[in-house]
């Protein structure tokens, strides 16, 4: 249920115990950045009665106890934060990481690179060069635990999903469509094209941070040969590394 006039950001209720602040109605770099920054502010505020928050592609979600914190009170607080600045101009919060996840492009391990390159009007070599140099942001996690949506790639990668599903891509598959990448945490069917293969472990029980990636983190997928990849499969975390983002 929309709680206000047209024009973003908007506030809507989700069920009886959720409120959603949205910064757009389609994936867009600024709206995603706003959602991540806004959520960091809500977390910092630590309002009593708010039980959980999350950011998705263009929105920040709050789950709260509506019998302890009224909808009206929460809405008033959210409007205050919304009005406090232009969130579309906000910087991403501190504490983010830049990950490097070694990736094999094309070949038997990632059979749809050629198809994706041709959809984008590029040679395979050009495609590998662009994809292995791109630094993309984790715009949201979903579908499986710790599984990222990453974007946005340059406009040339605005290629459609396939009309048919690929019945199965393996865990660690890097797939591409509509200027976005998804890195699969589990074996799954997909309508996106399988352009790369990684040995990343997105979810590791027992680690202090069980999820490798968080919204707002950035990732580079450097190209490695199939021979190098075979060695990385046995390396901890599939050879992925990270550093703090300034």
């Amino acid at each position, binding site marked *: 249920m929309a709680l206000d006039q047209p024009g973003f950001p908007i506030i809507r209720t989700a069920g*009886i115990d959720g409120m959603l602040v949205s910064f757009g109605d389609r994936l867009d770099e600024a709206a995603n950045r706003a959602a991540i920054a806004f959520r960091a502010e809500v977390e910092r505020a630590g309002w009593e009665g708010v039980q959980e928050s999350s950011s998705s592609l263009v929105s920040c979600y709050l789950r709260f106890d509506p019998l302890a914190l009224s909808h009206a009170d929460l809405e008033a607080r959210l409007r205050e934060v919304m009005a406090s600045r232009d969130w579309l101009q906000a910087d991403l919060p501190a504490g983010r990481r830049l990950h490097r996840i070694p990736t094999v492009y094309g070949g038997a391990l990632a059979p749809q690179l050629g198809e994706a390159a041709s959809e984008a009007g590029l040679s395979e070599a050009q495609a590998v060069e662009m994809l292995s140099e791109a630094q993309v942001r984790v715009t949201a996690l979903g579908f499986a635990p710790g599984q990222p949506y990453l974007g946005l790639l340059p406009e040339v990668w605005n290629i459609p999903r396939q009309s048919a599903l690929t019945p199965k891509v393996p865990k660690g598959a890097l797939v591409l469509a509509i200027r976005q990448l998804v890195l699969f945490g589990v074996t799954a069917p997909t309508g996106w094209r399988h352009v790369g293969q990684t040995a990343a472990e997105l979810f590791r029980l027992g680690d202090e941070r069980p999820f490798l990636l968080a919204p707002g983190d950035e990732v580079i997928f450097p190209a490695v040969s199939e021979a190098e990849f075979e060695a990385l499969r046995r390396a901890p975390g599939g050879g992925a590394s990270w550093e703090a983002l300034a």
Partner: protein
Amino acid sequence: MSRELIVHRAGPALSLQDEGRPGWITYGLSRGGAMDRLALAEGTALLGQPPGTALEMGGMGGRFEASEDMRIALTGAPMRATLDGAPLLWHGAHLLPKGAVLEIGPVTGGAYGYLSVGGGFAEPEILGAQSAHLTAGLGAPVASGARLAVGPDRGGETGCKLAVEERFNGGTLRVVESLQTAMFSEAQRARFGEEGFTRDNRANRMGVKVNPDGEGYGVEGGLSVVSEVISPGDIQMTGDGAPFVLMAECQTTGGYPRLATVIPADLPRVAQAPAGARLTFRWITLDEALSVEAGYRRHMAELHRKVEPVVRHPGDVPDLLSHKLVSGFSSGDHHDH
């Protein structure tokens, strides 16, 4: 010897379940937990213990044995249960003596039965909860041969029962407007609150499909909606226009348009509707929903006051082991929650 519930034979959909693990939505992990949260609370009330973890049994139970004397409670969808061959009352608490055989057969109504144990299950926690989240690959179904660790029991009553509200054969589900309600035409929204639906064969811990009597539901351009957060109870319209009510193991975000959200108090009724059950939806305002929620929480907190001893004629009871004769039904140690 360790205190365990031994699973000699497991039905196809057994898993440990609790209130789930909140706090991970932003990482793509939904809360999960028991499909029928009320049944969990009923088990807790019958055993007079704090909220914990129960064995959820989809459709069918199994054959069980306790490694030492153990109190048990049977709640949720009624199932045929016997203790060494003698019938056991559902919605009741009983003594399961060491070595006795507990058989729990198919449901006689509803979909998910629950077996709670005195002291609660004490299996290792994953991210702060024992429950299996099968869709996410956390934990696993409980299989034949499992030995489930059970915590120490402070003791308490057995041979008691709880009168429960009928929720095992469909009925009316109250819904509130949600994120995307306004995307649907007035006509569809009105029809949704008027026509009848039948619970499809397709249902699992992620969601329950319901088929409308009339035509399907959908919105213009519905396949290009930006993915937004999902709450359990959200009613999602997939390609063929049949609604899915999303449940405990739903994904955290989704791009299919959602028409409304079933209120938490009515989710047990969704979970327990068996295939073929008739369902209707009724729109209520957010204010009404909040007052229902307050009543629902009060109801759960007061369940323990409604537990009553089973009174039987000795002649009806071939085996007195199946219930302890209650001497004075006092409980100063019930927990409000």
